Structures are given as structure tokens and as C-alpha cells.
């Protein structure tokens, strides 16, 4: 990595479902499991609340990576929400890949309320991957850059 990249801190938006992943993030906190401060969490009732527009919006506004966390398939608080998420995001991410957007900038991860450790390790890993890609250039909106 170049010296430039050592300075670079990626901005990561994490959408977390209220019932599993947000609680998982809370548990990571309770257990003092560290992950980079670059990760900012937005609480949604269910992963299926996340509209592809929110993800693109994050990139437009300067995010370098977007991760979506929900209950494990089969464990959705609303029974079926994450099954739709899984299809929607599979399709959306495949389309972004098709447009030549780096596929490592997006991720879906299932994190239960009990998986504080998984939450932290997922965020550490994702932040590392995104950092290695460097700033998001392919879905940026120059008007939102300083």
C-alpha cells in the first residue's frame, strides 16, 4: 500500500436490524470488542427495510463501503424479512459488480443478537477490505466532496 493509503480512513455505513444485528453490535460493545470508529451504524427495524436507494445514497454522499446486517435466515423477527433482503441484495450487488463497482464495497452479513464477537470481527474485516480498496471513486458524487 502506498503511504497515501495509511492516512486514508474509509467511511463505512452499516445498516443493522433492530432485533439481531443492532443487538449484536450492542453486545460487541458490552464485551468491549473493538472495531474501527469508521463504522457508523444506522438502526432499521429489519434488514428488509433497507432500500437499494439508501445504499446508493451512502455511496453518493461519500461512503466507501456499505454493509447490511440482519438476523440469520430463518431467525428474522418478522419471519421472512431477511429472505427478501437476501434476494434484493444479491441482485443489487450483482448489478453494481456488472457496472464495474468494486464488489468488496458492499456486503451482507447475518449477525445474531448473541454474536457480538462476530459483529466486531465482521466490521474489522470489512473495514480492512474497504480500506485496501481506497476511496470510492466509481459511485461518487463530486458535489459531496469537500
Amino acid at each position, binding site marked *: 500500500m502506498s503511504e497515501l493509503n495509511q492516512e486514508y480512513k474509509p467511511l463505512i455505513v452499516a445498516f443493522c436490524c433492530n432485533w439481531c444485528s443492532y443487538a449484536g453490535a450492542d453486545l460487541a*460493545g458490552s464485551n468491549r470488542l473493538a472495531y474501527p*470508529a469508521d463504522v457508523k451504524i444506522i438502526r*432499521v427495524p429489519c434488514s428488509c427495510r433497507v432500500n*437499494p436507494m439508501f445504499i446508493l445514497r451512502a455511496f453518493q*454522499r461519500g461512503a466507501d463501503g456499505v454493509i447490511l446486517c440482519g438476523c440469520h435466515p430463518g*431467525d428474522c423477527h418478522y419471519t*421472512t*424479512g431477511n429472505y*427478501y433482503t437476501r434476494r*434484493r441484495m444479491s441482485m443489487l450487488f450483482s448489478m453494481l459488480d456488472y457496472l464495474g463497482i468494486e464488489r468488496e464495497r458492499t456486503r451482507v452479513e447475518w449477525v445474531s443478537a448473541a454474536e457480538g464477537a462476530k459483529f466486531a470481527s465482521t466490521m474489522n474485516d470489512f473495514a480492512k477490505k474497504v480500506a485496501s480498496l481506497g476511496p470510492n471513486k466509481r459511485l461518487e458524487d463530486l458535489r459531496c466532496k469537500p
Partner: protein
Amino acid sequence: MQRIGVFVCWCGSNIAGTVDVHAVAEALKNESGVVFSTDYQYMCSQAGQDIIKNAIAEHKLTGIVVCSCSPRMHEATFRKTAAAAGLNPYMVEIANIREQCSWVHKDMLSGTEKAVILGRAAIAKVHLNAPLIPGQSPVAKRALVIGGGIAGIQTALDIADAGFPVDIVETKPTIGGKMAQLDKTFPTLDCAACILTPKMVDAAQNELIKIYSYSEVSQVSGYVGNFDVTIKRRARFVKEDLCTGCGLCTEKCPQKKVPNEFNLGMDTRRAIYIPFAQAVPKVATIDPDYCTMLKTGKCGICSKVCTAGAIDYTAKDEFITEKYGAIVVATGYNPISMEKFDEFAYSQSKDVITSLEFERLTNAAGPTAGKLLRPSDGEHPHKIVFVQCVGSRCDSCAEKGKEYCSKICCMYTAKHAMLTRDKYPDTEVYVFYIDVRTPGKAFDEFYRRAVEEYGVHYVKGMVGKVVPQGKKLMVQASDLIDGKQLHIDADLVVLAAAIEPDKSARPLATMLTASMDTNDFFTEAHPKLRPVESPTAGVFLSGACQGPKDIPETVSQASAAAAKVIGLLCKDHLTGNPCVASANEMLCSGCSQCANVCPYGAITYSEKEFRMPNRTTLMRRVASVNPAVCQGCGACTVACPSGAMDLNGFKNNQIMAEVDAICRN
């Protein structure tokens, strides 16, 4: 424009240790709409809440942001605070700067920076918040209890005691459940039947309790306060209202070779049967799998001997639908299959039995009339080996057994060992254990008595294998304390099989949209604070369907669930969650994408007349959401391409405002 107040909590040093709370409060003062910003040691304390209340009044705040611990912790608290100060409780947003900031970041600089950003996001969201008023729905004042074991019976009795009608649905021909099969109960050794059967009779005689035995729940719709439940009453071919339970038919039935499930297949019953003498309802049932009349049309003996004329070979399954305000799940447990543990020779020898089978063998109403005899040859066993933790505490990667501790085995094994030594002092009894777990009132004393007074050999170690050899069972085990390998020629081996939730629980959970853990135990709304409620509103948990439990625990949980149900049924109306979806009819195209993804069937469509420009009208199909049914997941909002469907409390523009605020640096 909102007038927003920001309240940054130190949480002692929990937040203030890694986040410069004062700097956060100062930085957020600069955000648009913020007219007041402060920090305090404990915002959730009375003094902290007073700060909030005073600020709302003094600065005429229209929205507040509390930067504190997780909203899962104190969102409700601060909403109440706001409401007390006259602010709509949904004008409160929490920025989680403890669990998701101060506790996970070590560096003051980045922690503070992130806390400011999280605060900004909450402020951005609050700008777009609108006061929400929860809807109300009426409560059907009747409860349903699914499962008629001791848990279900106790819950039903308590609910009925409070004056509410309650129905019990039980799949077996009789209520009573596992407890009816037990001989004695630990740690007092009173007889299970003596304490259970009076309760069964109470339930049967209580005017407010209706028992649907030999029945199952086939469909559930609706929501808390308004469940519509379809109950399938399986045809028992005996009219319940006419049968007197005299039992004559069960003596005359020529089909004698039916394995008796009540005695776990250790003896037989007839094709028409009453499970046991104290069954409730005491009504005969014809087993269609074995009845010659039902299978070939030839026989009819039971009909001939029945003086009450109760036999009806033409009976069909019936479906009844009833409205309930609350549902209690009490589906109980079963011992796991011993198939995967063949090192213990369960399938090779009749003399290797499970503990539940042992209960039947020692029960006076059991296949041996209470005499402890070997199932293989009916001889009295002189050397008995009990093996604990069979299938419990297994690692998931071992792919057999369960990861959890089944909790009740230590105590019932002590009970079995003690009773054996008590009745048959000439019998040598070994118990192989990994740990002996006896937390419970008078539990450890009980176990110590087995060792000290009754001379049971407790061996720390596990049985490696059991090999049938002639009439004996060669048990190879380790004694870890003495550092020996033991070889015991036992007459009987009793396995303390792990317990698992009843198989009916999983499909039931799907019908109820109640969540389960990976072991198929029902999940409670909160493991500590709401242990008898399911996260699905209106669904409550009683007994071992929620996790392994002994009788006293089951009964106390059953009563707790009943108390929750009574609390619910006492209300005339329920206040709903206002964070539900709603459709903007002007934007809705009626395409049904949203209804396709709604797990609750909360969305319906109607043709509606719209006033169009130039004085025309148009009939158009539009969606509407039943706010009492909607649970607020938001699946519909993404299925809707036009954005007609939006979710109160988590609106599209609110989430995007959060995104914008987070990315703004």
C-alpha cells in the same frame, strides 16, 4: 423547523471515559435546529430526566436527541420522560454512543468524533420525525393454551381463576403430559399422580376451561388481542358427550397388539383405549391405525358393547375457529432419540432403557405394576448403571445430541437411584456423572442423601461402551478420580437422555410468527426481563417449550405466563405500535408487490374514487395497511417502487437523512 434539544449522557465514566461528552454537546449546538445542548452524568436518573423535562418546557423543544446508551436500553425511558413533559414520545431519538461508540473505541479523539457524527444523524432524523399516536384495538377476552401438560394446565387454571375463559388444545387423547407418566417427583418424593390428577380434574370441571383433547392448532391469523385460531379436532370415533369412560370397550376390543405409547411401548393396549385410569377427559379413543372396523369394515365389537351408544365409526375431523386475545404456548419436551448413541447398546438390548422408561417401570400403574423388573426377562436387576448427560452438553460439531444441559437429569437420576436403593436394598447402583448440578431448593441435600444414606455409587467419569453379554450388560467406564477403568457387569442400564422441544413446536412457531432458537426452543422477548413472553405480541411461553425445566420451575413459569395473559385480557383496548407502514394513496398504483411480501397479511386493496384535475374522477386500486396487524418490518416499503409505502418512525427520508448526516464529514 424543529426546536431540538440535545442531551449527552456521561453514563458515569462508561461514555465519558472515551468520549469528550462536553465537546460533543458543544459541537452539536452548531447543528441546525438545535436550540439547547447539554451533558449530564446520568441522563436516565431522575435528575437527568428532570433536566430534559425542564429544557422541553423552557426552550419549547419540539424534538429531543439523547446521546446515551443503546435505544434498546433506554429509548422507552426517555420517551416516557418526553411524554411527561408534554412532548410526543416519538419525537425522541437516541444516539447510541455507549455500546456502539465509547465501549468499542479506545481513543478519545475518534470516539468523540464518532459520537458527534452519531448525534448529528439522530438530529437529522428528528428533524423529520412527526408526532405519532398509537392506534387502539379491542381485546377478545379469551385465552388459548396450546399443550395440556402441567404447564398448560396450571396456566389455564390461573387464567380461569381470574375469571377469563380459556381453551386448552392437547394433541393426545388426554391432558396430563409428561408429568402423568412420572412416578415420584424430586426432591420431596411425593407421587406425581397424587399432585397432578387433582389439577386435571379441576381443569375439567372448571366452567371457564374448555379442553380440546386429541386436537391441534391448524391455523393462526390476527394479532395480539385478536387472534383467529382454527383448531382441528381429530376424529376419535367416540362421542365425547356420550362416552362414560366405563372402559368396557377397551376390555372387549379384539385388537390387543397395539404398542402402548403411554408406557413407552413397554406393553400393549387395545385399538380402542383410554390412555390411563385418571385420563381427562375420561373418554375412549379409537386408534384408526389399528382398528379393524375402520380399516376393513369388519368387527364393530366396541359399538356392540357400548351401552351409551358413543361409538361413531363415521366421525370426521372437525375444524372450529375461535377468537382469542392471547395465546400461551406450552408444548413441552420429549427425550431425544438414542439412535445416534449406540455405544450404549440401546437398540441392542431391552435392558438398556431411558430414564422415562425407568419411570414407567417403577410406577404402580406401569407395565410391571411398579415392580422393578428387567424388560428382557422380567427378572429383578441386581446391578444398575445410570449414565448421565447422554446427548446433553454435546458440541455442535459432534453432530449428535444437544449443546445445552438438559437440567433435570441430575435430579431425577438421584431420585431413581435413591428409590431403587430404598425399595431394593440388595441392588447395587452406579451413577456415572460428569458434573452433578443441583442448584435448587433442597436439591443438593437430596443428592447427598442418595450418596450418604442410600449408598449409591457416584462415579466421576463416563461410560465408554455397553456390550450385551449373555444376560449381562458389560459396562466399560472410567473412574477419573481413582484413575481406573471400570468394567461392570450390569443387569440394567438407564440412560439420562437429553430432552428437546416437542416436534410440533416448529410448525406452530411459524403459524404464530414467534421466533425460536436453533434448538427449536421458543425465544423469550428478553432473556431476563421478559422471560415468559414471546417477541410476538400476545404470545406467551409456559414450561419446557422455552427451555429445559423441572416441575416447580414449570409451574412458576406457567403462573407467570398466566399473570401476563390476565394483565392483557383485563384491558378493553390495546395500544399499538405506531411505527407501522402506511400507504400514500395518491402515489399507490395498487400493484400488489407490497402484499406479496407482507408476512402478516396486513395489506388489503380496495377500489377508491379519486378526484382528478379538471373535475373528473377516477376509480383506482389502492393499498391500505391495517395498523393493528402491521408489525413494522418495512419489507413492503422496498417492494414498493413508487415510495407510496413508507414506515412511520423509519421513513425513507429519515433514513436517508441519517445516511447524509453520517457521510457528512
